[in-house]
């Protein structure tokens, strides 16, 4: 069998598509899976949770964020475009002075940061914030 130039081009396109698609599909599903695993499939509302992150982060290696959700039991932070979307889970104990915490995280690129809080009554709320990242922070 002889390859014409047209065949070669089509094969090249197919190979490129095949190599890109599964990675994106995997990352997207993974972020949703993490969310579903945390909420147990329960409906997620809005309000009562504050997620603070800079609009523009010059360096994706250290992006300061803070979460605050009065009455929460635990708060999970997800960065959907990171190689592993889960960032951290904060569980508040009986001696917590407030259900808030700050930390510094890595972001691979410009994306929406999502925080989901589990309230003491078992309901879930989420908040999101778009962060522009100038230099990605996950190597590669």
């Amino acid at each position: 069998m002889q390859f014409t130039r047209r065949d070669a081009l089509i094969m090249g396109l197919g190979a490129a598509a095949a190599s890109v698609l599964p990675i994106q599909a995997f990352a997207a599903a993974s972020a949703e899976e993490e969310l579903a695993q945390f909420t147990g499939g329960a409906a997620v509302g809005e309000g009562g949770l504050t997620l603070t992150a800079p609009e523009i982060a010059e360096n994706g290696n250290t992006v300061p964020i803070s979460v605050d959700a009065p009455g929460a039991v635990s708060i999970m932070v997800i960065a959907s475009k990171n190689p592993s979307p889960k960032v951290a889970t904060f569980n508040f104990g009986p001696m917590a002075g407030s259900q808030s915490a700050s930390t510094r995280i890595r972001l691979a690129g410009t994306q929406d940061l999502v925080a989901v809080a589990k309230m003491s009554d078992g309901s879930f709320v989420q908040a999101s914030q778009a962060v522009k990242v100038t230099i990605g922070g996950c190597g590669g």
Partner: protein
Amino acid sequence: MASGVKPRVKVPKTAAAGDVVTIKTLISHKMESGQRKNKDGSPIPRSIINRFTCDFNGENVIDVTLEPSISTNPYFQFEAKVPASGDFTFTWYDDDGEVYKTSKSIAVA
């Protein structure tokens, strides 16, 4: 990474009974994400701190699960209730099984 890990914690020395105090913690750790590659292209294995807890007199204040997306030298700031004098215990759990501990006492005036 068992060498050069140094926890640093900032807790007020005194507080009034029932006060809420702000605590800041930092631990030096490179938090290797497992995503980076070295010069010959092979991936550098993941090596992170995967859990951080803070307790006051044996009762839990905060318990954080860390993932590779947490920055180098993990920093946390949070608030704790102080009903009486006592000790804050801070514990970091490394992927390699190492546990780093430090404690700070606070006096209620």
